[in-house]
């Protein structure tokens, strides 16, 4: 039989079930007769038991499905990730836009479920930082898309897409974006992307800088900024101020659904404002800016071409597509678009040679006008 000091020495091995049979029996025999050691062992054992009990946590039902879904989205171990990384060195632009797109869908679903507006007793939860980046900051864009898609399916967001958005569901990249925002929809972000979509034509760089400065002064956070596109999240009041500033900086050069009607179209709460900046609709500064008038099934055909060529959509709304197009695909893209009977370039013919490329890729913004 063991004595008390031997019990203390063998305690860990006992708890780990690592004792030889003889030692185990000897220990049991001592514990049967020694209440002090028994209490000590029980006390130590209860801690291990508590740690084990802490692990008895219910797993979210869709966890396994989510893993499988993401594996299906990117079945090749390294291909998609490498591609995403090369296109977005050092930033999460695609991810951000996926999130923005998703937020729109989530916002729509939220508003619809709340009969058009958040109730006064339950103010909308707006967590901009979380919505944009926090939950998925360490993921590549594809993974975020996949996650969001799964969540969108779980939430039934697809059913909430407005009828005029039916064609969006036809484009795989769009439904991926829907997924991304659905994850974020847990926070119920009541905003309508594109409800303040303005187009500014300017002639000199200082004007553009003046606008950026005005946004800084107004204190609105810029979700995305490139030479041609600024996306901000603003309250209805801030949106009105932005519009007012723009009309002062670019007199007569601002167009868009909000102009002349105030910004009455904005829902209460925050809204996503897109400000599209162009120098007379010409190419420049490493980007291509096209205006396309779409007829019939042209929208679906356009998305089909983009999908076929494997071009990643950086941003998408009803009226605006932003793509990053590798040089080798640019000519094909232009030829295919020019070959579509339902697509009419609104600002002269599309020519790949007019697109200035930067480091082998071009940022192509396509403004879509339904006819």
């Amino acid at each position, binding site marked *: 039989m063991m004595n008390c000091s031997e019990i203390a020495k063998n305690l860990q091995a006992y708890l780990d079930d690592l004792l030889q049979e003889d030692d185990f029996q000897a220990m049991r025999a001592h514990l049967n007769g020694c209440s002090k050691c028994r209490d000590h062992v029980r006390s130590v054992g209860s801690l291990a038991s508590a740690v084990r009990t802490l692990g008895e*946590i219910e797993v*979210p039902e869709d966890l396994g499905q989510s893993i499988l879904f993401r*594996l299906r989205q990117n079945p090749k171990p390294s291909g998609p990730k490498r591609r995403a990384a090369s296109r977005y060195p050092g930033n999460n632009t695609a991810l951000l836009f996926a999130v923005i797109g998703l937020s729109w869908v989530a916002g729509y679903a939220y508003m619809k479920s709340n009969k058009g507006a958040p109730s006064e007793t339950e103010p909308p939860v707006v967590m901009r930082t979380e919505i944009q980046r926090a939950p998925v900051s360490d993921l590549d864009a594809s993974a975020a898309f996949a996650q969001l898609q799964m969540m969108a399916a779980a939430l039934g967001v697809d059913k909430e897409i407005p009828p005029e958005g039916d064609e969006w569901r036809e484009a795989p990249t769009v439904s991926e974006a829907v997924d991304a925002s659905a994850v974020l929809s847990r926070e119920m972000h009541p905003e309508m992307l594109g409800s303040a979509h303005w187009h500014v034509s300017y002639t000199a760089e200082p004007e553009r800088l003046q606008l950026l400065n005005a946004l800084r002064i107004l204190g609105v956070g810029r979700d995305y900024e490139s030479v041609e596109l600024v996306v901000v999240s603003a309250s209805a009041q801030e949106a009105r101020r932005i519009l007012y500033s723009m009309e002062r900086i670019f007199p007569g050069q601002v167009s868009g659904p909000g102009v002349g009607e105030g910004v009455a179209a904005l829902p209460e709460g925050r809204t996503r404002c897109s400000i599209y900046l162009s120098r007379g609709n010409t190419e420049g500064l490493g980007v291509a800016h096209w205006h396309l008038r779409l007829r019939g099934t042209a929208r679906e055909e356009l998305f089909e071409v983009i999908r076929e060529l494997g071009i990643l959509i950086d941003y998408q709304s009803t009226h605006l597509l932003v793509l990053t197009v590798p040089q080798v695909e640019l000519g094909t893209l232009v030829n295919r678009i020019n070959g579509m009977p339902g697509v009419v370039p609104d600002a002269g013919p599309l020519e790949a040679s007019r697109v200035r490329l930067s480091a082998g890729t071009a940022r192509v913004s396509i403004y879509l006008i339904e006819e």
Partner: protein
Amino acid sequence: MAIQDLDEVVLLQRCRKGEESALKQLIHQHEQSVFAMVLHLGACDRDHAYEATVSSFVEAIRELQASGSDGPFLRELLPIVVRKTRDLKPSPKFEDPSAAGLPPEQRQLLQVVKQVLLALSFQSRLLLVLRDQIGLRYEDIAAILEVSMKEARSSVIQARSQLRDKTREALDRIR
């Protein structure tokens, strides 16, 4: 808990071929323990734990499919989980332990142990979770942490000792 048996070798072979039923089974075997591990190691909320768990599984399964290894899968998976969890920010929404049906004294102990665990270093927490929560063998813990088995064992014992001392202090304060 043995980290691998013959069944798992067969399962992993099927997973490498992309058999969905095998992948489901593999995920099902480990999702609960990994999710709980992320929650307690990261002291985070369920959303963040969910995301870290999913991305860890995806990365580990892709590694498995790319490397052609016969496992053990947990030795692929858990280092990834640890890496992804290390940077998670603790959340006040970190959930309470499931204590329904337990007598008040045990419920109190669970709460205290939970708080004490959070106060321990990440490494101590990791050792306790691997050994006492998931129930891994010392040789598997040693492989995952890339240390000797002797070192793994002494580290676990040391972490248990810390947990015991701090829990006792906390309970004394309450009483």
